[in-house]
């Protein structure tokens, strides 16, 4: 029984949160990795793209709510998501037209793109703060829980409760659907194949008549969709605050790099690796160990390997460790 209790506690405090966070990171890292693979630069503005996408979704959610539209037990934000994606797509394609296309035509060095992305990051950050402010926005409505602790205890007869929040369930399901769609698109459709060809060998792709501007545009639309979905899921799960999204840049990049930049499969693996490491190392394991160990050996402290504030440190240490052993990430990544 104690073993089951420990298992439930572990699921509750480590496995479920880490899976949720990992899905969010993976979606974010997929966006970063696609930009790196096809447009060939590290998009520092990705965190703020996520913030913009989430903000658009929030604004559409409020608009829908004001008209009395709701989605039953599910959050209204899901209905607003397509609108948010559309708005974000227009916004990033506009950015590409105004900023990046010029440098592409110039065949500028990759680092020029990165610096331009820094400028874009400032602008996006400013725009988001300008429109919605810097405060916390909670836009979760509908049913809050899929499974409540009390119901679970009654059903299982265990001492330890298990809760699954709607936002957590939604995140994982949505992430699976989105990733499946993305891989189907990249592997099966003509446009997807031309994107991969462009990523593998630009010159050869151009020779075989692929229109680069079209590839770039489709990439931005996909990236906008991924960023908006990832951002909205993160916002539903925690809350929306522009600054937090800017801070997500580090774990997202760590995930993309650990997996191997430019490799979509790697981005997903990296996202989960980073998320599980962060949650396990910064979560106090006292409760779990308390169930497993005989009473005399029960730990006194919280058995927290690192304080929660060091979660960035975790992603960074994993990043360095992996790069020292495998310089292009776990799955073979590209290098500009």
């Amino acid at each position, binding site marked *: 029984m104690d073993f089951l209790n420990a298992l439930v506690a572990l699921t509750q405090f480590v496995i479920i949160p880490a899976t949720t966070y990992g899905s969010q990171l993976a979606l974010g890292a997929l966006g970063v990795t696609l930009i*790196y693979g096809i447009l060939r*630069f*590290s998009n520092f503005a990705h965190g703020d793209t996520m913030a913009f996408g989430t903000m658009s979704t929030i604004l559409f959610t409020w608009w829908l709510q004001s008209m009395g539209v709701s989605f039953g037990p599910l959050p209204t934000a899901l209905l607003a998501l397509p609108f948010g994606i559309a708005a974000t797509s227009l916004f990033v394609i506009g950015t590409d037209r105004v*900023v990046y296309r*010029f440098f592409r035509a110039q065949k500028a060095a*990759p*680092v*020029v793109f*990165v*610096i*331009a992305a*820094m*400028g*874009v*990051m*400032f*602008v*996006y*950050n*400013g*725009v988001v*703060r*300008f*429109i919605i*402010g*810097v405060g916390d926005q909670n836009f979760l409505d509908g049913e809050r829980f899929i499974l409540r602790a009390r119901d679970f205890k009654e059903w299982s007869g265990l001492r330890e409760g298990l809760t699954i929040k709607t936002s957590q369930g939604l995140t994982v399901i949505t992430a699976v659907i989105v990733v499946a769609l993305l891989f189907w698109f990249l592997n099966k459709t003509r446009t997807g194949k031309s994107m991969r060809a462009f990523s593998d060998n630009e010159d050869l792709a151009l020779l075989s008549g692929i229109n680069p501007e079209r590839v770039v545009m489709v990439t931005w639309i996909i990236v906008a969709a991924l960023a908006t979905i990832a951002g909205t899921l993160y916002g539903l799960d925690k809350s929306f605050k522009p600054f937090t999204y*800017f801070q997500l*840049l*580090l774990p997202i*990049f*760590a995930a993309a*790099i650990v997996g191997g*930049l430019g490799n979509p499969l790697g981005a997903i693996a990296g996202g989960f690796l980073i998320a599980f490491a962060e949650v396990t190392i910064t979560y106090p394991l006292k409760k779990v160990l308390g169930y497993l160990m005989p009473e005399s050996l029960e730990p006194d*402290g919280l058995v927290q*390997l690192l*304080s929660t*504030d*060091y979660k*960035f*440190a975790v*992603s*960074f240490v994993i*990043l*360095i460790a992996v*790069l*020292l052993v495998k*310089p292009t990430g776990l799955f073979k990544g590209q*290098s*500009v």
Partner: protein
Amino acid sequence: MSQSLRTPLLFTFVACLIIGTGFVQGWNSALLILNMGLISAIMALGVNLQWGFAGLFNVGVMGFVALGGLANVLIAMPPTTEAWAAGGLKVFLGLAIGIGAIIAAVKSHARLSGHTRIWAIVAILIVGFFAFRAMFDAGVAAIEEVNPAVTGYLGGLGLPVLVAWPVGGLLAAGAAWVIGKTALGLRSDYLAIATLGIAEIIVAILKNEVWLARGVQNVYGLPRPVPDAIELQNNAGFVERAAEFGLDPITASTLYIKMGYSVLFTIVLVILLVMAQKSLNSPWGRMMRAIRDNEDAARAMGKNVTKRHLQIFILGSAVCGIAGAMMTTLDGQLLPGAYQPLRFTFLVWVMVIVGGSGNNFGSVLGGFLIWWLWVQVEPIGAGLMQVITAGMAEDSGLRLHLLDSVAHMRLLTMGIILLLVLRFSPRGLIPEK
């Protein structure tokens, strides 16, 4: 326009901006801008050493600046003897165990091979970690218990605060050495992310390690290298001289103190600028630029690229550390929560790119100009918004929202300036020769 004319003209223009601020908003504001402008110029100089000379993409400026700030506390604050007695030894023993474990792991990585190697390293790290935590945590708890409302930390050495400036540089240089050893082998984008990460970690340490510098409880009242305002106001001679200029004692004392900082900062900036110029035009500087422009060719010529990169990475970071120490001295307090990457990393980058990377004078100009804009965008924006919203109803929601949002125009403006410069004058206002 030839560059020899362009440089002095642009500097005159920025000087006019600052002097104009003095006439419009008062000399106190102008001196504030000047002082932070001097510090910003030094930070930009440090980044330019790395990026402009050697093409190293360092996005961890914030971390080095924060380490410089820490030096103020470690050097200038009086030591908390009680805390030292309670847990000082344990903390340092703990740290020694931690470092020892890492060294042992690295050594066994070099000496052993195969499966024994992996298991030995894992065992050393696990045992080392728990031994470190046991010793270290006990020490920290003891230190933090000593008068937590006022101290709760080890304090510093009680030395004059000016010593903190070079020490801030040394701390930053030490961190840069560690980062450089591990991350400089990585490719450009990877190095950028690595530096971004280390900066976040350094600030996280400053925020959390209460025993070191009180964490987010902040350290107030750092000693100052300039006279005390109250003392000046009570000094009859000073008050008399102020009256001769037609100033009341309070204004006179603040201006006097700010000018004292300006003089100190200018001395540091001039020294660093002269050194940077000398090195840029020396054989060493030419080698650096050769490495930057064509690494493979430089390597083929027998230059040790890795070593040179490490060298300049350390130098540039040290300069950022000095600037960070100076800034904390100016503030008179260490606020770890105030270190934000947008302000302390990316804004410095805007300064370097706008000013002209590869040109020391360009970076210095960028430092002053961008800092002036950073401060002035808000009043200018507020004025602009008043004009835009003038036609709207007094209680219109949009009007109020627009007026409230002026504070966020800074980031927007900085981004647009960076993008405009990158597009229309990619080599900056004062390009590299």
